[in-house]
């Protein structure tokens, strides 16, 4: 018998990537990558990063594969080749995609997603880059034992 191993942050990033790729027409010429990648990055870019995962606190000492996952979606554009309006459109499209919870849930690759909630949207400008960080809180579970 082989044992299957899972990583909730990996599942989360791959699922988000699948959902964003499904909606890629909303992001023409935008690179979409996971937080952990060896790809060469170029602007404009959207980085889907499952920053941390915590055993769900509601389950006390027996979390049984249920996690609270902190997700950061980084949207970066260069002021040299994008207008501020184009950058904002990318941010708004990212939020719209995440608000489609049923779609996100159906794109979940392994286990299940219960819940996704936006926590905040932070914006900054540096070195002629527009940057937004969309912070989401997700609750997800590993697949059951097979």
């Amino acid at each position, binding site marked *: 018998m082989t044992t299957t191993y899972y990583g909730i942050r990996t599942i989360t990033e791959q699922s988000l990537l699948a959902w964003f790729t499904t909606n890629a027409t909303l992001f023409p010429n935008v690179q979409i990558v996971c937080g952990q990648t060896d790809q060469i990055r170029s602007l404009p870019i959207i980085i889907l990063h499952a920053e941390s995962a915590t055993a769900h606190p*509601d*389950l*006390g000492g*027996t979390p049984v594969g249920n996690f609270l996952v902190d997700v950061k979606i980084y949207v970066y554009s260069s002021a040299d080749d994008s207008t501020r309006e184009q950058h904002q459109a990318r941010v708004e499209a990212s939020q719209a995609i995440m608000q489609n919870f049923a779609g996100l849930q159906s794109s979940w690759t392994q286990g299940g997603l219960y*819940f996704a909630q936006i926590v905040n949207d932070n914006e900054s400008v540096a070195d002629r880059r527009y940057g937004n960080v969309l912070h989401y809180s997700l609750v997800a579970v590993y697949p059951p034992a097979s």
Partner: protein
Amino acid sequence: MATPQTYGTALTWALYDTNSFVILQSDDIAVSDAIMVEVMNESGVVSTLRMDDQRSEITLTGVLKQGSTPPIPTSILTYAGVSYILQNVTDSGTNNGFRRVTMKGKKYQGITTG
């Protein structure tokens, strides 16, 4: 100078048992006697005590597993080898959390529940 304590004392940790339809979060077991008769002597001092009709009351709280339904009052719930008659079941949820089920039951001395 006091000698450092290098020994440990093992204690009872967490819950006595598990449950098939919830992930148990807490248990609370209270045992009491319904009959408690005190007999006083001529001086008014209790000299005889009769306690009987013991019952064990349990309160279990857990998070409902997907696809499971909570039991209904009157059903029998076995926990840590004791079978209780469920008398109260609460199934509560919020829009951003797991569903919690609270079950209250009793085991009566004079009723065989299995």
